[in-house]
């Protein structure tokens, strides 16, 4: 019952948040200077042409009426049509979502498969001279070098010299998996550098904190093997900050994908939304931001649930909240 109550509260909170986001994004998109008709039709368009386009997309109606129409149709899963392509927004997103998803999943996988082991390794080996220094330097560089800088260098090097991997020339996974992999390795690698570094640093700090706990000293005193201590005692207790940061990282990956998509000319959702902002393609912008908000809310909820499962003090009940 307590668990049900927790999920109910989170669901209500999500609905309210999404409602507020919908108002915010609708208002923000309409407050952008330069309307759709002016931007897309350009300066040569006559007032009659602009009026016709505005009427076609309902932009000549009262702003509240526009919002209400959009909200009620969005609730049915219809996010309207792209005013640029004339295609349903859901269709456009469906075509682009695999690209962004592929990038994000690759980055997330790299964070878990490389960042976590690297963090554990550098923590366990902390204070042992060169290894620790290299680890700190690598994670420091990974965190501090912006993607557009790293991406630009990678694009330059791999396009100027034949280094075996291709820049651009995206091919959908469904069309040619091998070629798709070749075209996605570099963007995914660039996107992953930051998240691997952040995950490694967070894991390292969390592990270092756990390593000085009395129960670890006791485990060592009991003669348990280092592998057993790390897997059974350290990782579980160090995992809460890591899980939290992984949630944040996923949000970051979605944002970072925009830059990577632009740099490597990948037709993903991120670059599409940015392009839509530039062209005042309101339906696409609104749907995109709302979709991002849904993803963040779901991620946060899942993170909280995971943290509760890992440590009852972060659980879902009222006692758990009091114990924090």
């Amino acid at each position, binding site marked *: 019952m307590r668990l049900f109550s927790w999920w109910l509260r989170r669901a209500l909170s999500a609905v309210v948040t999404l409602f507020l986001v919908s108002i915010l994004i609708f208002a923000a998109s309409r407050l952008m*200077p330069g309307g759709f008709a*002016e*931007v897309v039709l350009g300066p040569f368009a006559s007032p009659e042409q602009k009026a016709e386009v505005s009427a076609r997309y309902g932009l000549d109606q009262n702003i509240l009426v526009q919002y209400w129409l959009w909200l009620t149709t969005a609730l049915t899963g219809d996010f309207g049509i792209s005013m640029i392509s004339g295609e349903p927004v859901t269709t456009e997103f469906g075509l682009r979502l695999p690209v962004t998803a592929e990038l994000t999943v690759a980055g997330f996988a790299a964070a878990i498969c490389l960042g976590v082991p690297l963090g554990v390794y550098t923590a366990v080996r902390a204070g042992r001279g060169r290894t620790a220094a290299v680890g700190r330097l690598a994670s420091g560089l990974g965190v501090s070098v912006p993607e557009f800088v790293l991406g630009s260098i990678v694009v330059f090097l791999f396009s100027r010299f034949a280094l075996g991997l291709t820049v651009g020339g995206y091919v959908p996974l469904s069309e040619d998996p091998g070629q798709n992999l070749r075209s996605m390795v570099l963007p995914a690698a660039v996107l992953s550098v930051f998240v691997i570094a952040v995950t490694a640093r967070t894991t390292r700090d969390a592990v270092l904190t756990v390593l000085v706990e009395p129960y670890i000293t006791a485990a060592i005193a009991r003669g348990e093997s280092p592998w057993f201590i790390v897997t059974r005692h350290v990782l579980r207790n160090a995992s809460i900050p890591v899980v939290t940061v992984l949630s944040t990282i996923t949000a970051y990956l979605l944002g970072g994908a925009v830059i990577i998509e632009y740099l490597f*000319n990948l037709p993903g959702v991120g670059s599409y939304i940015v392009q839509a902002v530039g062209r005042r393609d309101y339906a696409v912008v609104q749907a995109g931001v709302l979709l991002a908000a849904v993803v963040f809310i779901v991620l946060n909820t899942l993170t909280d649930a995971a943290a509760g499962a890992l440590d009852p003090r972060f659980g879902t009940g009222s006692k758990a909240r009091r114990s924090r």
Partner: protein
Amino acid sequence: MRIPLLYCAVAATLIVTGCSAAPTNTPATEQAPGYLAVTDESAPDGGTLELQMTVDNGAATGLDPQLADVATAWQLMSLVYETLVTVGPDFTIEPGLAESWDTPSPTRYVFHLRDDVTFSNGRAMTADDVTGSLNRLLESEGVWRTQIGPVEEVSTVDERTVEVTLSSPYEPFLAALANIPAAVLPMKEVADGSVDLARTMLGTGPFVVESHRQDVSWRFTAREDYWGAGKPAVDTVNIAITGQEQARMAALQNGNADLVMLGNVDAPQLLQGVRGTTVATQATTDFYYLMLNSNAPGGKFSDPRVRRAINIAMDRNAISASALGGLGKPTGATPAGLPGACDPAQLPSATAGLDQARQLLAEAGAENLTFELAVFSTEPAPAIAQVIQQNLARVGITVTIEQLDEGSWSGKVYGEVPATFDAALSWFAGYADAGMVGKWWNPEQAGFNAGFMKPNPELNSVIDAAISTADSAERTTALRELCTAVDEDAQMIPLVTRPALIGYRTDTLSPTLYATEGYGNVFRGVADFRLLTQ
């Protein structure tokens, strides 16, 4: 040991990156008179041509060629649509779908159509298609309705002959007919509703659209039954829409693209030494200009003396050298490079000195003038704005540059009537006749300028003279007078031409490229392009 290695790797990367930008000569030489490149006819037929361009045709008006008003759309549509006449490399008018024409009087044009032309659906083109297309254009809301001139009547004489009657002489008529908005459309299908031109492209041109993903890509297939001399050399043309300059350069370098459009004026230097690539610098008649809002709050530019002072202070050579890598040419209102265009060095503003500018400002009581200059963020506009800022500082004018995204810029400059901005930077397509763009200085014809321009009846009469005078010598005089009148009016100040940079693979592609373009159509010769490797 590993740390020094890491440092070395980073340092090597930075050195390689930095060294690549060493300045070198810009390749802009002509391979043949009027051509930057001419296709090697001995190269084999077939293959897939990979092109990349910056933006898609994103107009809300869709794919209707008569409503297309930007060069990007003209480029794409030129693969499918054709016009009665076309423009040669030296801006002479050449036969297109009309094999010849007569001009019985300055207001009558009789076009004799080719008899072997078909649309891509197999139907033969008729005189009614031509008549219907032109009449449709005259009734449309497109900007080309203004450029096509004072057409009084279009009539079908017989199956192969069409006659156009003008209400008054209009010298740029044939040049206006040579651009995509005046293309011949399948009017029978339009009339019976089987084709929606806003969503489908169906023309007489060398290619048909196989697929299109908005803002991602186009795929065109060559027509086997194309009426021209043989079908296009390549089988397929893929066009990727690549917004990032860096990505386009990368595609060119690693061979993913055979030809790319580039925007960075340093591209020739950046790609110098990359084996198998070259950057051709195509001159265009497009040009940048400065808008001074005569309706600006506080009347900053309502006094012509202030506008003239600003015009005098413009150093067009410095703008070209600093912001365009020396690739732009100073120009007056008749675009530099077009036959009959005026010499910008002879204009009143060019022959006056900075002291005269300061004197004009003093007489107008505007010694310490300050204003905001709105520019869009696409290079080289911000760089041009900086040079203008420095130019005007020499006469005591303080300019604050306001850099905006294209949407915000458009809203600020064209969103309100009267306009509320101070000054703004933009560019015009220069077209293929020296008198065409002059029309935009008449806000009564160019309604989009009405928000910031006050009508000038004297200037309007000079504009009319420049487009109606036929005699060569008289026309040159009329065009010079147009330049002078625009120079003194100074509500829109022409600055420098806008070069087009075309990168292509010399090891895979043999293209045909004009040395100078009037309609920004780099794809003009795509049907002739040949791939050197299949």
